[in-house]
């Protein structure tokens, strides 16, 4: 079984990078508006279904599916922000109101996918050439390499914007203290709208990557991805982008190694155990206080 360990570690890294993307978009949505997006996983699955339609049914390339999923889910995010979140922020209990709102979006998304695609499990099928690559004893599918490369590129792009551009620094400042940024004249509403839409776009794109890497999905797979996203965000430190990515990789590695030694079904349980241990040792998560200064 030990001979399989390098293979499992590579798989864990790839799955972990995707989980990191899941956590990164969740943490930016949380940071931008202080809302917990309970529909996170459902929108990821919506992205997977976009890939299913475009790639499996229409024969288009996965890259085009990513573009369409990004734009489509970003548009949903922009609409949600413009039509609902602005109003919810003015309610007497904005956190509870937005929590319930996103629970509703979660149920609605699942129901809409069920209505359109039925309850069967679906897969994203695309004939890559070559199908896989071999590195010594490790075999990695073309789809997984593509998912890893895209995942790394997206994370690098987001980090570049957040840490190297004035727009990203303003967004981080808004997350640290909205009122202080407002009184120096920054249009936080517009900043939040863009951050929200882009984060939702990343959610859709992550759905395509999940469709490529995971064998199958169905309209109600979303809950599992929502849970994983929350685990990796808390593991890394709430509101910390680097923490979300590191948390995702740790969770992915734990899940895959556990599947090898203890069985697939124990993967998430071990992930939760790791979360509990880290929270006991470091209650704020690996990257501590949501400092955003890594």
């Amino acid at each position: 079984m030990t001979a399989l360990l390098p293979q499992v570690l590579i798989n864990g890294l790839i799955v972990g990078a995707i989980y990191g993307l899941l956590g990164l978009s969740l943490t930016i949505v949380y940071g931008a508006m202080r809302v917990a997006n309970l529909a996170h996983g459902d929108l990821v699955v919506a992205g997977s279904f976009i890939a299913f339609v475009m790639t499996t049914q229409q024969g288009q390339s996965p890259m085009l599916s990513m573009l369409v999923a990004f734009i489509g889910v970003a548009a949903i995010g922009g609409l949600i922000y413009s039509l609902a979140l602005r109003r919810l922020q003015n309610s007497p209990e904005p956190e509870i109101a937005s929590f319930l709102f996103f629970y509703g979006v979660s149920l609605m998304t699942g129901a809409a996918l069920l209505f359109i695609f039925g309850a069967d499990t679906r897969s994203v099928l695309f004939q890559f050439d070559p199908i896989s690559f071999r590195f010594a004893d490790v075999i990695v599918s073309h789809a997984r390499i593509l998912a890893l490369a895209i995942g790394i590129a997206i994370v690098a792009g987001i980090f570049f914007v957040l840490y190297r551009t004035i727009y990203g620094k303003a967004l981080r400042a808004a997350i640290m203290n909205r009122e202080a940024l407002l009184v120096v004249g920054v249009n936080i509403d517009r900043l939040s709208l863009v951050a929200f839409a882009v984060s939702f776009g990343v959610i859709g794109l992550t759905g395509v990557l999940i469709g490529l890497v995971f064998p199958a999905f169905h309209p109600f797979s979303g809950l599992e991805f929502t849970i994983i996203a929350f685990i990796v965000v808390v593991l890394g430190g709430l509101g910390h982008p680097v923490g979300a990515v590191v948390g995702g990789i740790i969770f992915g590695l734990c899940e895959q190694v556990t599947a090898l030694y203890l069985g697939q079904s124990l993967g998430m349980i071990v992930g939760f155990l790791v979360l509990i241990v880290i929270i006991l040792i470091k209650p704020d998560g690996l990257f501590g206080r949501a400092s955003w200064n890594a």
Partner: protein
Amino acid sequence: MLEVRELSKRFGAIVAVDNVSFDVGRGEVLGVMGVNGAGKTTLLNCMCGLLKPDSGHVLLNGKDIVSAPAHTASHQGLGRTFQVPRSFHGLTVLENLLVVPARGRTRTELLGCAMAALERVHLDHVLHNYADELSGGQQKLLELARIMMIEPRLILMDEPFAGMHPDLCRLFIEQLEEMVRTGVSAMLVCHEPETLYRLSRRILVIHQGKVICSGGPEEIRRDPAVVDAYLGTAA
């Protein structure tokens, strides 16, 4: 320069700001006194757009800033500092200033403004440190430097000297006085009467959301309502 007219704000049954009216002239430092919970911070929040008042107007150079989006108040030259300094702890000292909108300035000009502001508050030697590495007093100075970046006409200051080291306090006051000499106005909420008497020729005393007295230090000291509500003993 600033006209506040019949401003009111309620939180349920509590009237935090009750029909308050006053003016602030160009280059004037208007002091504001009042016990904790008197409504001073709520008044500042209503004036700078962080809270929407239930009624009333705030006119800055004739423009009503209450009905406009909150972020546009600073575009009219209104700055605000907070009792607990609100630095962006995960950004460097310099970045704390560079997030201010350029508003027609080039990147180089904005950087020049930031460097000049940091020099004025003696933080230019720590410009690449993270803001949370600064002391509380230095963070207040950083907040003042950030306000300088918007080229303010009026600054609302909420307890700027609370818990500040005397040397930093002196520097803060020097910079405030320098800005006032160039025509900038200020509204200074402060619990220390002697500091207010020194910096302000006119002081508002607020009690239970209402202005109970307005005048110079001597008038304030002698006013029976102020003595009763705030000072405790005849000064």
